[in-house]
């Protein structure tokens, strides 16, 4: 299935802003995070189709997954 992945902030460095991938049915956000090489501890908000989602969410054909880093400074 086709999944569009959008990366935000410095997750883009050395990777991409937006890219389409072909993943098998049943793929979760967690697997994509790992395949892209992001550390889970650095991950802030996960968004699927514009809405907040959990990392174990199973994606569906045509979904857009957006990944934001953890931001905690003040």
């Amino acid at each position, binding site marked *: 299935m086709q999944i569009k992945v959008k990366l935000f902030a410095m997750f883009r460095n050395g990777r991409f802003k937006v890219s389409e991938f072909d993943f098998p049915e049943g793929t979760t956000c967690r697997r994509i995070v790992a395949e892209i090489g992001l550390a889970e501890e650095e991950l*802030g908000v996960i968004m699927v189709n514009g809405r907040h989602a959990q990392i174990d969410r199973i994606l569906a054909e045509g979904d857009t997954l957006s990944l934001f880093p953890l931001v905690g*400074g*003040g």
Partner: protein
Amino acid sequence: MSEPLAFIRSRRIGDLLPWADQVAAAERFDLSLAQVEDLTLAADILPGRYQRNRRMLSCADQRTLFNSRVAIIGCGGLGGYVLEELARLGVGELLVVDPDVFEEHNLNRQLLASPLDLGRRKVDVAVERVARVNPAVSVTAVPAAFDLTKGGLLQGARVAVDGLDSIDARLELASVCRDLGIPLVHGAIAGWYGQLTTQPPGELLLEKIYGRAGHAIASNGVEKELGNPSFTPAVVASLEVAEVCKLLLGRGTTLAGRCLNIDLLDMEFCEIRL
């Protein structure tokens, strides 16, 4: 009519009371500048310092702001700008909570940091700053770290503002605000990036943003590697103050239920529905 009120009326120019006359009224009748400001606003006269607010804020709005208490938790990059803007806006009572003293690495971005104040408590400098900028505003300074045991500090606050620099402390603040039914305006920064949301009373939205329900996260974000420049805290703090203003006045649309992600490097603003 009371004597002070008659004096205020006699000195007004149109619907404005010049600052010099506000000071004169306080001295003449042995009142605080805050008492004179409240009398003035109650009489539908605007202290002259707020005249450029008046196309967007009525005298009644200005009085609502003046009679409001806002808690600023953390007085660093975000908190310094939040303090400054709330004082200039005319919010009458501010609480600032921060355990730290100013250090050299604060000078690149923290509004209240200056070489002369290195080594001094941030909350003490905050009190002095507000006394210079808007002496009618009162500031309560608490030189301590905020945690779950400090909920009592928030009693009477209409809004709490997040100027903290750790995720654990933010989650504790969010939980205290939920329990007390106080709205929390959250902001956080890292390098070119920032985020903002408003947690309505009784909810715990910050847990969604910081993902504790779904996966383990670090106790600090990417700011540890990215640092923070001068402009990112100013941007995010200003957006926080706009949220506070709307919450106090019950006007407009806040970010409740949405998180705004800010990327100043690519100049993108992305909204997440929570």
